[in-house]
């Protein structure tokens, strides 16, 4: 059956929109998806976790977003003592702002005039989810994960970030128990801005280190 045959209204107009519910579902459940589903069902059946625990955790993860990370960065830009604590012990410092890191620990790496930091997880897709939300698809792609450690400057260029050749590029492979957040340099022209104004210019990609915040 074609999409048109399944449509529910006349088709005398050009198709530049989707018809909800009429696109055939061609994605079959993958092997790992089935394994994960089976594991979840077993854990629930054996009473290790409840379906509501799973739902609640998903709800918590979905409720996180890069605005949280932006608040942390803006605070660091406006409060030198907080910035010092953040760089010394990221986990503890973000806890002060009410962001729990869960089982992982947070390391905050600071961009300076000499150093640019960039985050990747080559083994899977470790990401500071509690402060940035779910990772974008490109972060999880095999291409980004493989290339970020081999040719970071080319990858950065593709994100529109061209760095001077004498600036050190420091790639952090998030391969074990630490999670990373980049503290970008505060852009010129934002001196004296309020914490709220600064929060608005800190983007997710700047905190992963593939771009620089713009005033």
């Amino acid at each position, binding site marked *: 059956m074609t999409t048109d045959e399944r449509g529910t209204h006349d088709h005398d107009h050009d198709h530049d929109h989707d018809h909800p519910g009429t696109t055939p579902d061609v994605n079959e459940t993958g092997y790992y998806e089935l394994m994960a589903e089976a594991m979840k069902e077993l854990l629930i059946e054996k009473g290790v976790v409840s379906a509501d625990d799973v739902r609640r955790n998903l709800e918590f993860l979905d409720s996180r977003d890069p605005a949280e990370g932006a608040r942390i960065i803006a605070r660091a830009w406006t409060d030198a003592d907080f910035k010092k604590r953040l760089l010394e012990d990221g986990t503890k410092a973000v806890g002060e702002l009410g962001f729990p890191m869960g089982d992982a620990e947070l390391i905050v790496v600071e961009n300076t005039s000499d150093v640019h930091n960039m985050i990747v997880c080559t083994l899977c897709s470790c990401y500071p989810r509690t402060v940035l939300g779910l990772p974008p698809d490109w972060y999880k792609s095999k291409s980004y994960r493989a290339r970020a450690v081999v040719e*970071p*400057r080319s990858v950065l260029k593709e994100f529109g970030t061209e760095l001077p050749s*004498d600036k050190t590029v420091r790639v952090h*492979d998030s391969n074990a128990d*630490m999670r990373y957040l980049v503290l970008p340099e505060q852009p010129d022209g934002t001196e004296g801005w309020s914490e709220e104004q600064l929060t608005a210019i800190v983007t997710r990609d700047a905190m992963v280190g593939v771009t620089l915040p713009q005033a």
Partner: protein
Amino acid sequence: MMFSVGDRVRIKDSHPPGHRRTPYYVRGKTGVVERYCGDFKNPEELAYGFDGTPKRELYRVRITQTELWPDYEGSDSDTLDLEIYDHWLEKIGGQ
């Protein structure tokens, strides 16, 4: 602690089967201990349902990109930092 910040270390060029947290591209490479991250349950044991003890010391090792990739295009000062558990590290003698 087995290693100190600044120690020159080699990541073992070992290829045991199973779940390993040391990526292939750094095995056999040398770097410098950047920081000690704490003691953590060994994920290579946890992966198989063991309790992950004894805990392992976790270190961040800084490796220059030119050490990893001989034809690296970029600054000689560019680095790759990653986390390596103590049992994958050996100190380079005479330091």
